[in-house]
């Protein structure tokens, strides 16, 4: 971990208008929760559906994509990464720092708003708020690692990320039961289910699979990103 790398990365992610890219979706989530509350739709079933479909199903992967690729892809694209890489710092440590920044942003802009939205709707009822925040926290960290890796592996990180998050997890996961096992947001729901006692929430993936999967995917992705960064080729303008 390197504090200079972290501070430059935070400034790149949060500076001026960039922060709205991260803040827009969680604000929308909270606004929906407030609206539902105002029109009296704040029951437990609605809260669980909103968390499943929107908080974990949409916002979390999108923020994972924005933050995970955002901490490194633009710098590789415009060559600013040379400033960090041409220093006597082990590159895996740069990758680890970038991961930590991405993960912290996802926690702040996804796990925390997830808790707030659910709490605004139904308070602490059935542990829904705490459960989904818990799930979003760990799934968010895994997303940060995976999308950081995608950002290092390919110039088309956003396209690859969208295909994974929307097509694989969103569409295929909806129809092919097996595919659901290989879905970070399903693992997040499994974790949420452990904390929440709500009968409306039923996770498809067993904890015995989801918990080790999250840890392994996160660790492998960060290590792999570090190794790829060691061998990063810059071709210049020629």
């Amino acid at each position: 971990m390197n504090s200079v790398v972290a501070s430059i990365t935070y400034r790149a992610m949060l500076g001026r208008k960039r922060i709205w890219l991260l803040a827009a979706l969680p604000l929308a989530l909270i606004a929906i929760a407030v609206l539902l509350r105002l029109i009296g739709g704040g029951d437990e079933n609605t809260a669980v559906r909103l968390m499943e479909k929107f908080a974990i199903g949409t916002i979390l992967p999108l923020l994972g994509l924005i933050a995970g690729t955002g901490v490194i892809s633009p710098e590789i694209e415009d060559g600013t990464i040379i400033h960090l890489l041409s220093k006597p710092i082990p590159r895996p440590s740069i990758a680890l720092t970038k991961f930590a920044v991405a993960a912290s942003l996802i926690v702040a802009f996804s796990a925390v708003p997830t808790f707030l939205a659910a709490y605004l709707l139904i308070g602490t009822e059935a542990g829904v708020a705490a459960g989904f925040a818990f799930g979003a926290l760990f799934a968010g960290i895994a997303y940060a690692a995976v999308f950081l890796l995608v950002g290092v592996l390919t110039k088309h990180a956003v396209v690859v990320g969208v295909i994974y998050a929307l097509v694989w997890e969103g569409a295929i996961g909806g129809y092919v039961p097996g595919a659901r096992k290989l879905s970070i947001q399903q693992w997040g729901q499994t974790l949420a289910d452990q904390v929440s006692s709500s009968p409306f929430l039923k996770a498809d993936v067993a904890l015995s699979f989801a918990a080790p999967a999250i840890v392994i995917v996160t660790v492998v992705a960060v290590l792999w990103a570090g190794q790829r960064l060691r061998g990063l080729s810059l071709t210049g303008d020629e």
Partner: protein
Amino acid sequence: MSVIELKQVSRWYGNVVAVNDVTMTIGPGVTGLLGPNGAGKSTLLHLMAGFLATSGGTATLDGKQIWRNHEIYRTIGLVPEREGVYGFLTGWQFVRSAARLHGLQDDAAERALELVEMTAAKDRRIETYSKGMRQRVKVAGALVHEPQVLLLDEPFNGMDPRQRLHLMDLVRKLGAAGRTILFSSHILEEVERVAQQIEVLVAGRHAASGDYREIRRRMTDRPHLFRVRSSDDRRLAAALIADASSGGVSLTAQGLEVRTEDFRRFTRLLPRLARDLNVHLWQVSPTDEDLESVFSYLSGRS
């Protein structure tokens, strides 16, 4: 004293060969890497800076492998060509971050900014800088740790004449102090003003190597083609063809076309002849003076 050594280095991208079997040693002093655009200069610099793996051959710094070795950056300072600087940082923040990444204190950053004369503008954001100022801030960032080796990719591009002279002076001083400095350029005048040693790269191949006098001689001692328009083309043509420096003279509707075998002699002969014959010269222009033709001639000979 540090030395970068390339041994039979090649680099290809798919079917395209960017650098072809280059062997060179870059030692203390200033070396200019000269070549037309697309000759593979940036590729070669990236190979030396650890941002590209060789497809064949070895690239070493003081005997140690460069690729996948972050320790080399204690010795190397790199100024890339692309404007890769964080626009949202001020000049000071940028150079200080470079110092901190090297584990150095603020005084190192202050020294480096002074060296490139950017102290006055250091608190402005880099995105407000001109191209030349960005270039200088990048140089400062590469110099914070007083590296033994400095690699600069087209460093004088986009600088105004005063900034250019200042940076040239700085590069010369660092070279005189025993640092190993390599910079790339496609402009011969730029290279010969700063570098003692010149390496010429043409189409990915090491076309020539030597001091600037040697390279200059090779570049000028070649057949030149001139177009001349005057008040009396025919008389001038007759006098020109009588001299040994002319390889051929033809009368065309646009004036004379003169091929000369001896550049220096011809350039002295022409004004003298015109004066003696009382012929007015309207236009004298070289028609093959573009760098590509100079370089292709040079690479064809060596």
